[in-house]
């Protein structure tokens, strides 16, 4: 039954990755870009008020990075647990 346990570990590692990445997803868009946008606007980034930047561009750029990180992590995880496609 060792293989069964490995699959469980694979699945829970996957869920952990997804939860962490989706927390970042939620923070940059909903927390920074909507809820606390006004407060963040007193800081500046790349010449933009920060809350405005997260809402306008920042969250989109970070979304792309999040998927990139997920792809890298999962491809490595697939190989580690020997469930990758041949």
């Amino acid at each position: 039954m060792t293989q069964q346990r490995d699959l469980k570990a694979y699945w829970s590692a996957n869920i952990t990755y997804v939860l962490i990445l989706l927390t970042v997803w939620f923070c940059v868009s909903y927390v920074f870009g909507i809820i606390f946008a006004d407060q963040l606007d007193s800081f500046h980034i790349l010449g933009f008020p920060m809350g405005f930047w997260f809402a306008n561009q920042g969250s989109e750029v970070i979304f792309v990075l999040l998927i990139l990180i997920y792809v890298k992590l999962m491809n490595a995880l697939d190989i580690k647990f020997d469930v990758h496609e041949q």
Partner: protein
Amino acid sequence: MSILAWTWVIVGLSFALYIGIAFWAKAKSTGEFYVAAKQVHPVLNGMATGADWMSAASFISMAGLISFLGRDGSMYLMGWTGGYVLLAMLLAPYLRKYGKYTVPMFVGERYYSNAARVVAVVCAIFVSFTYVAGQMRGVGVVFSRFLEVPINTGVMIGMAIVFIYAVMGGMKGITYTQVAQYCVLIVAYMIPAIFISIMLTGNPIPQLGYGSSVSAGGAEILKDASAQGQHLLDVLNKIQMDLGFTAYTAGGSKSTIDVFAITFALMVGTAGLPHIIIRFFTTPTIRGARASAGWALLFIAILYTTAPAVASFARINMIKTLHNEEYAHAPSWFKNWEKTGLIIWADKNGDGIMQFGKGNAFIGGKPNKEKDNLDMKSPNELQIDRDIMVLANPEIAKLPSWVVALVAAGGLAAALSTAAGLLLVIASAFSHDLLKNVVAKNMNEKQELIAARIAAGGAVMVAGYFGIHPPGFVAQVVAFAFGLAASSFFPVIILGIFWKRASKEGAMLGMLSGIGFTAAYIIYFKFMNPPAFNVAANWLWGISPEGIGTIGMLINFAVCIVVSMITKEPPKQVQDMVESLRYPREIA
């Protein structure tokens, strides 16, 4: 060469390219017709997804919408991109592992029920048809503005083109034309944006340009010497506030909870749209499906990060060059677009000078036939159609005629690519989910392929009909397609993948209660009551009908979970199938 001649040449060349691809990519099997035989490279699939996703609305209307809404317009930027994160992590790899052809098919097999499949077919067809009618109309509008043919002739030409490559090539033909269409539309969007950014700020990257300072040349264009060296957004904020608007970079036109709910409904709706989901069925591997979502979002983000820059440039340029300017000295682009009726000046105080300000130039925001329904309560004398922010861009930047022509080809590429993706969903829902699965189970491969082609052809006809005779409700409903997708598909697919216990009773009641609640709320506020009733004070928790899909989705989740707990658990082979979705390789 004149602008019109250039436009015919460039649009003609782009259409020839699409048809050429159609002949090269003819579908020979149902596998090729439904999912391009799962042979699409992840990068190409990313481009195709980008074109599939970015419609006439993204290309023509979004920047204008943002320029009028300021920071609140970001809900469209975040809402229409954030869904890809959900797709990449929660849907694409698992549905690719499932490996079959349609979304209703997955729902039917996972919930071991043909009834669930039929409910899903109805949702998919409804969502896709409301969406596609708008695209066909968009094709007609671009034709009429740039090529001076009647709107209906434009719709017919668009239909003929889509007919050729969708019916012949199916998913395979659509995919490779979408790749070409992405290239056309992104070049057409970026060139004017880059030049306007250089003109106003000296920065060739528009994404950074609108956060930079106004250059000497920019100050000259804006007719404001004091603007030189100041941050462009500061100049824009100041002029906005001088005219009585809120600052451009501040929110304020909508409540925080409503912006939150709308953004969420758009994100989850994106992840629930069948024509986007099936794009991830076409990659050769599960690795490829994951990567493909990343490529898709990268290609989409190039346009979506440029749109807010275009919005700011257009806004500041419009106010600075038109407000308090004598009509006799109006810029040439203003005179050109005045002819189309997209921009109208009404001299309320008879001083021969154009004044811009808060409120409407005409009562109700629309001029009547005689253009004499002036709204005297507002000092604003300019009636501006939002679409002009993108359409007039090349002329504002004084770019050569061929760039104007390129924008026309880009708008057509955006509309046609989205229409084709939606038509395929409709065709496969008919031929595979209804005909093959329910009506004529004994169909062989050849017959099904013929049926699929006929269904695609029929769907093109119906879409064209709606494009020529747009039902009054389409414009209103398109915005709600997302809410309906969010409250129907998304929860049952997520639970279907991540929770083995989810039962068919739970899924069906969940879908029906989610979409039922959302549709009822929208109908109540949009169709049963006068517009004056559709205000925050009457809304549930201050959430507008645009954002109510978020609540509908939560209801669907809650109902599906509770009902699944009290009904029989799914059969063993279904639970085994759910287990197998989790691992990229087949585990015995």
